[in-house]
């Protein structure tokens, strides 16, 4: 006798609904965002004033330097700065 009857299979399929489209897309675009993030991190490592500004107010500091503070980039930078 099978352990996997229709009811069980149906339940298991239902346990993995799609993640929200925006979440998936943001993660998929990580390589593209990474170039910009690397640029900002390099700049922060070379420029103490810029780094202090990032730590004080990330979004404002990015905008002041002409970077678009996209959530993907902001979140990733926040994580990287916290890890340092």
């Amino acid at each position, binding site marked *: 006798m099978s352990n996997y009857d*229709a009811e069980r*299979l149906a339940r298991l399929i239902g346990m993995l*609904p799609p*993640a929200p*489209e925006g979440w998936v897309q943001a*993660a998929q675009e990580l390589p593209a965002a990474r170039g910009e993030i690397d640029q900002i991190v390099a700049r922060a490592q070379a420029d103490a004033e810029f780094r202090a500004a990032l730590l004080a107010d990330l979004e404002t500091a990015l905008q002041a330097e002409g970077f678009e503070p996209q959530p993907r980039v902001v*979140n990733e930078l926040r994580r990287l700065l916290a890890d340092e």
Partner: protein
Amino acid sequence: MEAPRDDGQAAASRSKLTAELTDAALVARCREGDDEAWRELVERFSRYVYAIALQGFRLPAHDAEDVFQDVFARVYERLGSLREDDAVRPWIAQLTRRLCIDRLRSGGREVGTDLEELADVPAEDVLTELEEAFDVHEALAALPENCREILDRFFAQDESYRTIGDSLGLPAGTIASRISRCLEKLRGAFEGRKGPAVPSSEQVT
């Protein structure tokens, strides 16, 4: 707060957990800087990470989203240090669990180091079931498109016979019978992947 859900069409278009590349081959391509492979890797594991965070650890949607993004950011950064490419799935699962626990801790909940001790952490059998669900989705990905789509839309995306029927131009009754036939196919495919079924009384513990 309820996590946002996709509209059916968008979700259906990316519900095809493609089985063309093995996990190891996919990881190797990602490591070479293949952006398309990276997109596929995110697609392949997105439901799993999402389910662990939301169903397994019952994180609220905003926390689950942070964990979700953090998991893939770390995977992207650390893919080069993965010792065995075909171990990417348990690695991602472990990373997701750890980040979920970190999130619970940062929320001020009492979290120890032993998973079994944690009131807010899922029992191991929930996580084991999610792994089993992943296996079922892999078998589903190997089915013909018409079965894959209809089973995923009905069971995973909770669409009605009518919604599916309208979009496929089929009567609701046909959808119902197709679901039944496709589940049979899935069972054959899944059990074929796992080997002969063993009655629970005979399972080795």
